[in-house]
């Protein structure tokens, strides 16, 4: 019975040592992922740190991180493997001048030596279990998603010219989605699911301090409270964790130790947090000063 809570707490601790502050729910998800050997689907707003989960996981397991960035029009060739066409062409020329038969040439040029690994193939051919990050799966097309199902359930791929390649190691797979497109039920069903929300105030303080240990606790708390307040404003693009860290870094760079000390300067630093013109116009100097007065 204790193995479970131990293993789970261990995950949180090990994530903390690599600088990722995880809540209990996420630790549970990662624990389940290892136990059930299933991919983990992370959904949530942009900037809540979904991609970071995969990076931290790779560090925890000291495994290579292999990243597949999805985009509209991503196809098997770009995700799985590609032939080295230039080398193939040169080889054909060479073999042809030696008078070899067409069949012999074909067998030659469609061999491993001319195969270029792309992320998916690299992940399953990795000698040790890697962490495979399939980023923003919602950007890929339906066809690609269907193809992914096959790879993720069997962990083997078929290359027509070479035959079936079975996995040398089973990667830990993390998929992320921003919800641009509805992902199919089939894919969802094969994955564990975790919804990543914006961190609460305490966790945000912990995140800032994990990244910038030199920051004073009081300032980290002020920053976290200010960000939480800004997230409650009616904005087009709510600042995420990455923005929080940028903001904290900028404050450190200016040598500020108290937000109330120079609200003007804080307002100028809002470029690190607000990414649309509209949002910048909305958070006027007065509003920012009022927010700072509240949190400082």
């Amino acid at each position, binding site marked *: 019975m204790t193995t479970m809570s131990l293993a789970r707490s261990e995950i949180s601790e090990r994530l903390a040592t690599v600088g990722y502050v995880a809540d209990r729910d996420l630790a*549970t998800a990662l624990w389940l992922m290892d*136990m*059930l050997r299933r991919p983990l689907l992370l959904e949530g707003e942009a900037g809540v740190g979904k991609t970071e989960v995969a990076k931290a996981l790779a560090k925890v397991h000291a495994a290579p991180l292999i990243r597949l960035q999805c985009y*509209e029009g991503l196809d098997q060739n770009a995700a799985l493997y590609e032939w080295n066409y230039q080398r193939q062409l040169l080889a*054909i020329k060479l073999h042809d001048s030696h008078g070899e038969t067409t069949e012999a040439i074909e067998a030659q040029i469609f061999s491993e030596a001319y195969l270029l690994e792309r992320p998916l193939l690299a992940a399953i051919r990795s000698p040790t279990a890697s962490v495979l990050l399939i980023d923003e799966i919602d950007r890929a097309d339906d066809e690609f998603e269907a193809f992914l199902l096959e790879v993720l359930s069997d962990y083997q791929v078929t290359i027509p010219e070479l035959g079936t390649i079975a996995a040398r190691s089973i990667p830990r797979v993390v998929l992320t989605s921003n919800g641009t*497109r*509805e992902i199919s*039920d089939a894919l969802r069903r094969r994955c564990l699911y975790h*919804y990543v929300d914006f961190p609460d105030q305490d966790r945000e303080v912990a995140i800032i301090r994990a990244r910038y240990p030199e920051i004073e606790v009081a300032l980290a708390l002020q920053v976290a409270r200010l960000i939480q307040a800004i997230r409650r404003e009616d904005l087009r693009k709510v600042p995420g964790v990455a923005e929080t860290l940028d903001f904290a870094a900028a404050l450190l760079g200016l040598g500020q130790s108290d937000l109330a000390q120079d609200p003007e300067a804080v307002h100028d630093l809002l470029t690190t947090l607000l990414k649309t013109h509209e949002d910048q116009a909305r958070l006027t100097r007065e509003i920012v000063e009022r927010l700072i007065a509240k949190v400082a």
Partner: protein
Amino acid sequence: MAVKKTPKIGASHAAHEEVAGAATSFNIGAPVRLRFAAFVRSLRANGFAIGLAESHDVLRVFCPIDPADRNALRTSLRCLFASRQADWENFDAIFNAFWFGHGTKGMTRFEDRRRTAPEAQFDTPTNDFPHAPGNGDAKDKPDDGRDPADQHASKERKDARWGGATMQDSLKQTDFRHILNQEELQRAYALAQRLATKMRTRLTRRDKLAQRGRHLDFRRVIHKSIARGGTPIELVFRRRKTKPLRLVILLDASGSMSAYTAVFVRFMHGALDAFKYASTFLFHTHLVDVTRAMTEKDPQRAIDRFSLLSQGVGGGTKIGESLAIFNARHAARTIRSRTAVMIISDGFDTGEPDILAKEMAALRRRCRRIIWLNPMLGWKDYAPEAAGMKAALPFIDLFAPAHNLESLEALEPYLARL
């Protein structure tokens, strides 16, 4: 039930052997297994997509967890069974209700059915659809200058006038308000549905004729060039993939639209059938995603879902607020680069025009086209004077009448140009 079977032992991984071994040695009693099976069933009833594999896994998850540690069990099961944000948010309520009987009173079946057979389910809309003509209160309907006594006579008049080949054409021009008999209504439905299908096929054909891509398919080129000593004589091109047109329909289901709602519901139904990607919503005081309900196999269940909507009737139409909900919750999921949003409403908004304008602007930024269909535009002497309509006008790409089938048909070439 799958849950009763012995859990599968995880192969190969040494660390997992222990856990899986514990799973088999930990002998879960039949009552607990049955209880889990029932829990899985109740999740499924609430729209969770749970397959066999997950119900196997539940035992593997359950075994190493201390049964007293409710929280660990809850988070683990949520991670395993939820597969979308809505599931994630609803899970705790269902979990608590099932295991501890909390809050059972407030529980509803969350509407999130799988798409099943897209069969027509509004066969008798006059009896079942809350806003269907003939079912709503007389005061709800726009004044169409008829009283019930007059209806019979008018039916006879129409039967006499409509006959032979011209019947369909005349039907196309008849204002939906004036279609009163069942048979005509059915014909109008069929036409609306067929129209949606026709729209789709026309658009698909256009897609196929789209310009060819200029990307070489190297793999095929190399294959073909082997026989010619590596000289790529035959070039193989890859065709550019065309993005399918998507349609989002937002239908005003308020009292003032009641004469038209039933026909447009049919149109939406047809669009869902015909378009690979279409989403449909109904709104009056709030917005409801009816995409799944529209494809519900069981007609009675579909109507139950629709009756959710009637809760807000009488509060007036809040187009702005409804759009705000759409923008916040549904837009990211339903709108992509080639998406047309079709709003079907008379524009009588009881909300703030400012909100409407703001949300229209937000919507405009996202989608390719906004089409606003206003049935009243087909009426004589109508001018869009309503405050809501005025606020929305600057953001509309096409403002068109939609009071009869002919006007719907006229939209087709416009959609094809998207």
